[in-house]
């Protein structure tokens, strides 16, 4: 049997294939470059520059990083805790409030939606936020200072509301008639029906937590509570900052050799970004399903 694509003729096929091959290569190439640089001998980097194949192979960068494994392991632990606890709590809260404001028979539906919507437009600003977290919640140097602020995003709540609103109200009604209480309806019927939305949002939220560093920068002084991304940002930021201000600090004489060299920085990037790249494909299925949410539904 001839498929639709085949009927289009060989040339078009080749063109599309070539286009996507180039596109994929453009996406994959930087990653390969980073991995390659991280495996290149530092002196070879200085004399030959970057290349896709290590000009002189060396695992020194990884050895250097693993010399003090506790720093990275602790950071991993912190990030894992933040991501797991944050994502679970966040998904639970988002779906609960999304469900409530999606229910047609809920009297305060509109005002509550507006209430959720307001912080999307206006924010309190950095300094009040800082005062709230440090002086009222007393969360300085606590991982919860990173988790709490990300718990509820109005944007995700509205997406969740949109998805749950598409679930036929009749299902809820019939469940009620069969004697199910609100909790049972939510956990046994609504949540299972919303799996694609939960997975999609869960992925977004998990990404946000995994990549979070700004709150950590503000609130974490204690070196044992530093998440992975902050570790990375600190090294990269400091280098950039010193470079951009070189005209001021020339007189001070900062010893640039104190900083991790090029390959160590890239090795750190690989160690930070690597795991997330393996997790992503597992969510892909739900992710694709979630993308089509609301477009075609009976």
């Amino acid at each position: 049997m001839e498929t639709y694509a085949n009927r289009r003729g060989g040339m078009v096929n080749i063109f599309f294939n070539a286009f996507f091959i180039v596109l994929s290569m453009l996406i994959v190439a930087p990653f390969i470059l980073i991995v390659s640089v991280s495996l290149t001998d530092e002196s070879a980097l200085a004399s030959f520059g970057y290349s896709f194949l290590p000009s002189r192979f060396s695992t020194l960068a990884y050895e250097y990083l693993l010399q003090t494994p506790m720093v990275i392991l602790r950071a991993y632990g912190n990030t894992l805790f933040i991501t797991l606890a944050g994502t679970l709590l966040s998904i639970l809260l988002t779906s609960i409030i999304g469900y409530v404001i999606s229910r047609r028979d809920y009297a305060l539906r509109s005002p509550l939606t507006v209430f959720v919507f307001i912080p999307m437009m206006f924010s309190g600003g950095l300094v009040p936020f800082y005062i709230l977290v440090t002086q009222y919640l007393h969360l300085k140097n606590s991982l919860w200072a990173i988790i709490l602020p990300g718990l509820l995003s109005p944007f995700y709540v509205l997406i969740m509301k949109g998805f749950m609103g598409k679930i036929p109200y009749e299902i809820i009604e019939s469940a009620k008639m069969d004697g199910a209480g609100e909790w049972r309806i939510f956990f046994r019927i609504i949540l299972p029906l919303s799996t694609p939305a939960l997975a999609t949002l869960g992925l977004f939220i998990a990404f946000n937590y995994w990549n979070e560093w700004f709150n950590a920068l503000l609130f974490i002084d204690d070196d044992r509570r530093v998440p992975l991304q902050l570790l990375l940002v600190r090294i990269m930021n400091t280098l950039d900052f010193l470079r951009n201000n070189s005209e001021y600090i020339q007189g001070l004489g900062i010893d640039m050799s104190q900083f991790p060299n090029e390959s160590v920085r890239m090795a750190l990037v690989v160690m930070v970004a690597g795991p997330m790249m393996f997790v992503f494909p597992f969510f892909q299925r739900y992710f694709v399903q979630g993308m089509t949410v609301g477009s075609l539904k009976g």
Partner: protein
Amino acid sequence: MTKMKYVSMLLLCGALLLGACSGGGQGNKPAGNGGETAQPSNNGNAGGEDDSLSEVELIWYYGVSQVSPDQKLIEDEVNKIVKEKINATVKLRPVDFGSYTTKLNTASAAGEKFDLVWTANWAFNYDENVKKGAFIPLDELLEKHAPETKKAIPSFTWDATKYQGEIYAVPNYQTITSRYGVSLRKDLVDKYGFDTSSVKRLEDLEPFLKQVKENEKGIVPLMLTGPGTVFEPFMYGFDDSGVRIGDDTFQSNWLEQTPEYKSFVELMRGWFEKGYINDDASTVKQIDSIYNGKYATGLESAMKPGYEAEKKASNGGYDVIGIPLTEATTRRTSNITTLTAISRTSANPDRAMMLIELVNNDPELYNLLSFGIEGKHYEKVEDNTVKIGANAGYRAQNWVFGNVFNGYLVEGQAADTWEETKKLNESAFVQPTFGFAFDDTNVKAEYANVMAVKAEYQPLLMTGTVDPDKYLPEYLEKLRNAGAEKVQAELQKQLDAWVAENVKK
């Protein structure tokens, strides 16, 4: 049954959240208490000096290149000394330079309690924060608690820290001079027999650049970086406010319009066209692996004693010869590159000042903060020179803490580096408008626009990347449109007021 299960699950989540909040609260309690108990001691202090000091806790924020694993160890050792001398405990809060400005600006705006804070004109900006009222004036405290520190630093350096006549920070005394010049790779100079004593002006470099260009493949004759290449007013007889040196009327010149500026830009253009300058000069921010050790000449804006040793380390290990093209001069900006201030939220400013005095005068404490513990983090190679271990668990910048002349030298620096630097500091040419700082409050918008235009055109013109015949007039036109004349007028107005107050006939 199942309903109960879900309800209990939710409750659990709730409890988890609450537990988290209260947990954090507990964690912070000791600090809060510390703050409260600290209050009365302040009063006690004001009452009588010679009373035995009650114990207080001081929080000290400062910048580091990287937070060290052994930080806690150093803090404990520091506290042994500080506890004995001034009965205080110090909480060291190192923050990496990249995050320092953001973090401290926020903490300071939020009124967080801390005592000592490192500040500079390039990170957690000193002038801005003085205007915001982030620091307390220090004149009285200095007299009372830090006479030695006050004495050790030249008076013009103190003048540089003044805002409306009052000192708001203690300079961490180090090199305060700048000297413009060039550095040439020694092996190439020897190879071509170039006579470095013939170089009196930038133009005199041309024969050397030509030889390198013709004979050395893969070596850039003159390495320039966009942000690092500036028109040095002092080399052309102006000071930083654009006043011609020796001009008693203190008329500020708009430097971009001067013939000197034009000649500099044209010189660079000529060299660029001849291929002496790296093609990507306008966009390169820092000499990195691509150019490391692959250029023959570099421009230097801060030649200080012992700088050749530093240069060697950063330029692929080649020896360099430095040729200064100006006298050593001191300007306000080179005096405020590293300072320690006392926060307005400090509960114990007196004790904070005592700590500053202690750090600036107790070499043991200062070296501990700067280099760590002997035998563990560094080895002594000579009496006053140390070698820092390759993988030492503690690293810090000695100039963020205090007077560097009290501390050790690092291997590679000549034994008399401190004496030489001090001598240079004291003999440096003090610019006529030294101490004057332009306040952009009245022309904020224009000033920002002018700065934006400068940032756009300067790297292009300074590195010779574009043709000045076409772009210099365009640049001046854009500056004019951005409001440069208004800024210039405001500068002159402030300068006149400053002259009337500070310059005696």
